[in-house]
């Protein structure tokens, strides 16, 4: 079946360093969403990307959607302890005459003080 792969699975960074997580789909996506889940919490919506090559920024977070609409990335500049959590991408794809949503396994971010 269709898959959404996310790498890396884990990332440890020193506070102040940058962080990037990548998401790759086996098929073209209608849109891609990013969510953050704090330890013990539930996923919280960050952003949705729809257009090919789209780039969106939220303060220290930069989201990109690839030209082929098969990959995406989330980059955090100068990480802070509040950035700790698991970041999930969720790809929406057209399958069997309907939209389907598939979450990646997530990238767990640890911040070293």
């Amino acid at each position, binding site marked *: 079946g269709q898959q959404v792969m996310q790498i890396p699975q884990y990332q440890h960074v020193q506070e102040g360093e940058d962080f990037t997580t990548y998401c790759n789909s086996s098929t073209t996506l209608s849109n891609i969403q990013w969510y953050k889940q704090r330890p013990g919490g539930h996923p*919280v919506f960050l952003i949705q990307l729809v257009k090919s090559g789209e780039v969106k920024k939220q303060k220290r977070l930069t989201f990109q959607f690839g030209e082929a609409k098969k990959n995406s990335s989330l980059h955090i500049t100068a990480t802070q302890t509040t950035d700790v959590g698991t970041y*999930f991408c969720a790809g929406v794809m057209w399958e069997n005459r*309907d*939209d389907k949503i*598939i979450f*990646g*396994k997530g990238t767990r971010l640890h911040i070293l003080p």
Partner: protein
Amino acid sequence: GAGVSQTPSNKVTEKGKYVELRCDPISGHTALYWYRQSLGQGPEFLIYFQGTGAADDSGLPNDRFFAVRPEGSVSTLKIQRTERGDSAVYLCASSGRGQGSYNEQFFGPGTRLTVL
């Protein structure tokens, strides 16, 4: 305003028993989704409601799982003859704006189901 609520927050049951999990979406949200999340994994789609009808139930793993949303608001996920492999956190989400089936989703805190 109030977010998505789910009850119970924790449910422990024995293998073979029947359980019901409830979701109260954000008022006015027409779309409601159920997911299952196992440790170290992303949410796994189960079913999506648009209003009272199940628009997509292709994620339900087998016929032991069933969900309803009779009045287009509260939804109940029902699991018959529970198995140990059903143990997971069951997440509910709702959405109310934008075009298409899947847009910004607001998740509830989840119900942690443990089948002994």
